[in-house]
Every structure is written in structure tokens, then in C-alpha cells.
């Protein structure tokens, strides 16, 4: 037999290459976006927020620290917009846009001395600033806002939802509940399954930028919009 015989490596190569390329492609394609972003995209407000989404969390704390140390704003703020989705505590700074600029400028400086800025925060402005979590939870419910009633729609009308958001006196979102009504049994079961998760997501993200619940996209979008209106009403 003088026939040329390819080896196992040669025969298995296409399959291995396919699998490898497949996993690489998954990495390239996977860019799960929060529902809040998708909602604002649908409203035509903001299109590329996903980059801000990937910012590391330490930036958050440094920004709030910066806000505490320098500005200490007692005035009501209208900056709670989806422009800076992952920097919720930065909404205490006068302008969301300046907060973002600060974000970029202050990264090296803050990482150099994070403790120094964080420590004086509670004493400097105990009542009005974005204090660390333990202090903030004490007066949860100091501000209560009810969001607009949103219809739950996904090509057809499933019902309505309206969230009631509780904030601390420093305007940090700390508790959310939702009133909803569903038109049919299936929507009812989807809502009763999804809404508790949405509440958790909202509280943990402290904003309307929530991941959403898969299989319950319609109610997630409506929830996010209603919550956004509650935050905007602050």
C-alpha cells in the first residue's frame, strides 16, 4: 500500500478548528446589554451605552468620593438620566456629563488615595451626600415616588405596571415595589415570576438600568420605563 495516509491530526483538524472558531465567535458576539439600555435605545435617547457599562466599579466609588469631597450639593438634581447608567451615585453631582468627565480625569488620582477621600464622607455631609451603604439604609423611604403607569406590550397588550420607588434622603434608590395588572393567566404567571427579580435588580443597580428577566422582556421593559420616570421625578 503506497497510498498516502493522512494522520489523525489532519483528520481531526477541521472539527477542532470549527469548535475553536465557534467559541471565539461566542466571545466576539456576546455583549449582553441591560434592558434599560435597550429601552432607551428604543426611545432614541442613547445608543452606545454599552461601553460605559463595561467600566470597572472602582470608578464609581471614586467618583462619589470626589463628589462628596468637593461639591456637597444640597440642591435637587435632575441628572438621573440613562446617560451614565453604571454610575448611579454620581447622579448627586450637578451634571451627569461633568460626572463622566470627572470619571475619566480622576481615575489615577483617586486610586492613589481612595481611603483619604472616602473616610471624611459621612462626617462632612451626613444628611445630604451619597454616604456609604450602611448609613443610607437607615432612612430608606424618606422619599417615595411613584412612576408612571406603563403598558406591558410586546406586539400585543398584556396589561400595565407602575412602580413605587423608595429613596433615602440622599436620593439613593433603596426599595422598589410594583403594582401591575395582567390581562390573561399567562401574563399573570410571567409577571408574578418576573417582578420580584426586577425589584431585586433595580435595588442592586440603584437605577433603571436593569438586566431584565429573560422570557419576560415585555414586563421588564415596561418596568424599566416606569422606574425611570420615578427617578426622573426626584
Amino acid at each position, binding site marked *: *500500500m503506497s*497510498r498516502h*495516509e*493522512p*494522520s*489523525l491530526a489532519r*483528520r*481531526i483538524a*477541521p*472539527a*477542532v478548528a*470549527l*469548535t475553536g472558531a*465557534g*467559541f471565539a*465567535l*461566542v*466571545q*466576539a*458576539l*456576546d*455583549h*449582553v*446589554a441591560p434592558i434599560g439600555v*435597550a429601552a432607551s*435605545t*428604543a426611545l432614541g435617547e442613547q445608543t452606545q451605552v454599552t461601553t460605559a457599562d463595561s467600566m470597572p466599579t472602582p470608578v464609581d466609588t471614586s467618583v462619589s468620593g470626589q463628589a462628596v469631597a468637593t461639591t456637597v450639593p444640597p440642591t435637587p438634581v435632575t441628572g438621573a438620566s440613562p446617560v451614565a447608567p453604571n454610575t448611579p451615585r454620581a447622579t448627586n453631582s450637578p451634571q451627569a456629563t461633568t460626572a463622566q468627565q470627572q470619571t475619566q480625569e480622576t481615575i489615577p488620582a483617586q486610586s492613589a488615595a481612595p481611603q483619604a477621600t472616602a473616610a471624611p464622607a459621612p462626617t462632612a455631609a451626613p444628611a445630604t451626600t451619597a454616604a456609604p451603604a450602611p448609613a443610607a439604609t437607615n432612612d430608606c423611604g424618606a422619599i417615595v415616588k411613584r412612576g408612571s403607569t406603563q403598558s406591558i406590550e*410586546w*406586539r*400585543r397588550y398584556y396589561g400595565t405596571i407602575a412602580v413605587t420607588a423608595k429613596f433615602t434622603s440622599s436620593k439613593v434608590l433603596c426599595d422598589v415595589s410594583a403594582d401591575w395588572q395582567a390581562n*390573561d*393567566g*399567562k401574563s399573570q*404567571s*410571567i409577571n408574578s*415570576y*418576573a417582578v420580584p427579580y426586577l425589584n431585586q435588580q433595580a435595588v442592586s443597580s440603584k437605577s433603571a438600568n436593569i438586566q431584565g*428577566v*429573560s*422570557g*419576560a*422582556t*415585555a414586563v421588564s421593559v415596561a418596568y424599566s420605563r416606569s422606574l425611570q420616570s420615578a427617578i426622573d421625578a426626584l
Partner: protein
Amino acid sequence: MKTALRTSGSTPRVDSAVRRPRPLTRPTQLPFVGSDVVAFLAFFVLVVTAVWATRGGWENFTDGWSGLWRGAASLTGIWTSLAGMTGLLLAARFTWMERAAGLDRLLVWHRIVGDTMGLLLGVHIFTSIVADMPLRGGFVNTIIDLTGREPYMALTTVGAGLVAIVIVSSLCAFREKLSFETWYFVHLTAYVGLAMSFSHQITLGSMLSTDRTVRAFWVLLSIYAFAVVLFGRWIGVISAARHPLRVTSIDRINSDTVAVVLGGRNINRFSGDAGQFIMMRSLIPGQWWKVNPSSLSAAPSTDGMRVTIKDRGDASAATARLRVGDRVSVEGPYGTTTPDIFEGRRPLLIAGGVGITPVRALLERLDRNSQPLVLLRGRTEAEIPHLEEIAQLTKERGGEVLTLLGRTTALKVNDPFSPQILRGIVPFLDDCVAFVCGPTSLTFAARKGLKEAGVPSSRIHLELPWW
């Protein structure tokens, strides 16, 4: 072993040189037939569809166009993954399925299910996109959402791509261009593809994400299908490799055909009969990863299983290079063709090329007065292996061998298996059981001719060209 002790009276070790060979245990008879396998799989599909319909899936269809798209997307999605599971089960080589339908037929069904799955997958992707377009804001946004922005959809997209590649590579036009092993390894990536597509069923299937009962049912079903295939199929491979047979003799029949006898201590682990085939894997360096199907060319006995191999592809060439003493891992014997198929009627055996080998084995097990008629087709007499053995065996059983030699284009008649010709040469056509084995064209031509000549299909047995 005990029989060996009684007959030889010397040592419990099987020593085939001095002991008279005893036929292998016949394959276990199970009370299932091919239609039972189809019924089982159809039941499987029906139950899942019924659960889907009663748990709210049907409501979609009562909700106008958008509901129609949504319902179609969800139903085709479920059917696509059911087709995937069914395909896995068919290829898993369960004993009961194999005994009922034969591995060759199971694999033909596997291919049909695979093609169906490809179609369903296409419909599922199309309907999902159409269903989501209004809400997600246009075609492009929908594509972006469904290929990565929704959780697990990137995985699913790639998984669907892998499954599609597997299906496309199995289409005849592509399959013929690939070597068997390349195709086979690509085929195995279907496992990866199916696993990748699983998560989106749970997260995006609104029924599965909210209905705990349905979700538990579906997850368990998927785990069951995967586990059964992984353990059933791959433990079989490992076990066959752990108890290999050894090459006990090699005969070169002609320039490109060899007859190899596989025997040794482990032969007693097997049960099989004439007419069946085995999957063999030579456990020699550089060859262990290639598997080759071969029909037994003699009735299997404790002396060993003889296979006659024609040099066609890589693995066949390698098998022809075996030496005495080499270890060979054997799976099987498989196939539903055994001497039982003749049920006391007169055997009509039609074979072409290397497909003649099971005919040679079957003849050995036929009764002395069975009077078989053997029709052989080949380009030259030398191309037909074991011709003399066949002539001898047929003569002993009061039968007759007719050979038809020459290229098809050079024959005097257009179709040597036309009903008229068959009627002319087979006087007992009304009381025969036919067995056909050979190249695809011959198999189908013979089946067509036999059917047209009035032989009921229950009495036509084929070795299907599944390879």
C-alpha cells in the same frame, strides 16, 4: 467455557486449533420491530408537543399574525431540539433499537431526522426573527439582539452554526468530497452545537422560563437524552477497545481484497449470526481512531469472525495492512439480516461487488434442502470474492448461482433487474424471500424490480447503503 471443558476434556482455555468450532450465541431476540422504534420516537415527540400545546403554546395561534409567528417560532424551536435528541437516540445504538431495526436502518433514519432538523432550524430562525422584528425595532436590531445582546444568544448562534455545518457536511454532495474520518469528527461537533443551543431554550422560551413544571420536564428530558447517548454509546466504544479480538489469519483474495479472521479469547463475549456486520477498529499505532464497517463473510463461530475487506478508503487500506496477532476492537455484530429472515421460504440472494460477503455467510447457515438462488453481479469474475466457496455452498444446498458480469453499459439489457427478467430467471418468485446487498444503484434497482414483480416488501430484505 463449560462446553469447551466437556468436549475437549483438557484445558478450559479456548484453543481453536484443536477444538471443533461452535457457532456463536445467536443474537438475542427481542419482541420489537422497526415500527416500534418509530412509534417510540413519535410518542416522544407527541408528548412534548402536547405539553407545549396545553401549557399555553396553543394560545399563540389564536392571536393574529404576530401570535402566529411567535407560536411557529416556539413550536419549530421545540421540534428542532427534539429532532436533535431523536437523532442522538437513533445513533446511540441501543440494543433494543438495533435488534428491532438494524444499525443500517437506524443510521438511515438518523440522516432523515438530521435533514428534517436542518429544515426546522431554518424555519425556527426565520420565524423568530420575523416575530421579534416589530418590538426590537427593525431587522438589523433584531439580528443584533438575537446574536448576542440577549443572554446566551451568542452561544446559541454559534451552536446553530455548528449544527448547520454538520447537517450540510452530511449532504451527499459534500459528504462524498470529505474523507470518512474528517466528516465523522466534524459530525461529532454536533454535540457541542446542541449543548450550546440549550441555554437559550430556558431563558428565551417564555414557557420554560416561567413554568417550573415544564422547565423541569424539559431539562430532565435533555439530560436524559445526552446522558444516554454519552454513556450508552461511548462506553460501548471503550469496552470494545478493552476487550479486543486478535487477527488469527489473513488471506489475500485478490489484489485489493483480503479476508481477515478475528478471534481469540474475547470472542466468547460476542453473539452474532451470519448476515450481520461489525464495526472494526485496528488497535495499531496510527490506526486506532479509524473505524471500518465490514460484513461477516462467514458464519461467526468460536473460531472467529471472518470479514472480507475491499480496499476502498483510508481505513480499509489500513485494515488490509493488518498482521496476524494485531488487536482489533470490534463493535457489533449489527444488523437484522440473519438466516431467520427466510422463514422456510426459498432464499433469493442478490449481491454485487463486495456486498457478496453476507450472502456467503448466510448460505453457510441455510438448510441442506433450502435450494437457494444466488444472483451475483460484478464487472469481472475476479472482482467477486469467495466465488468458489459460494458455488460450493449453493451446490450442497441444492441451489444455483447465476452471475452477470460486465459493465452496466455493456450489458445487453438496460435493467437486469426488470420484473420480466426476474420472473424469467426466478421461477419461485411468489414464494421467495429476497436479500439484496451491494452498491446503492444495484440495491435500489433490485428492490424496484422485485416489488414490481409482486414480491411484498416484507419479504425483501436490504442491507441499506448507509455508509
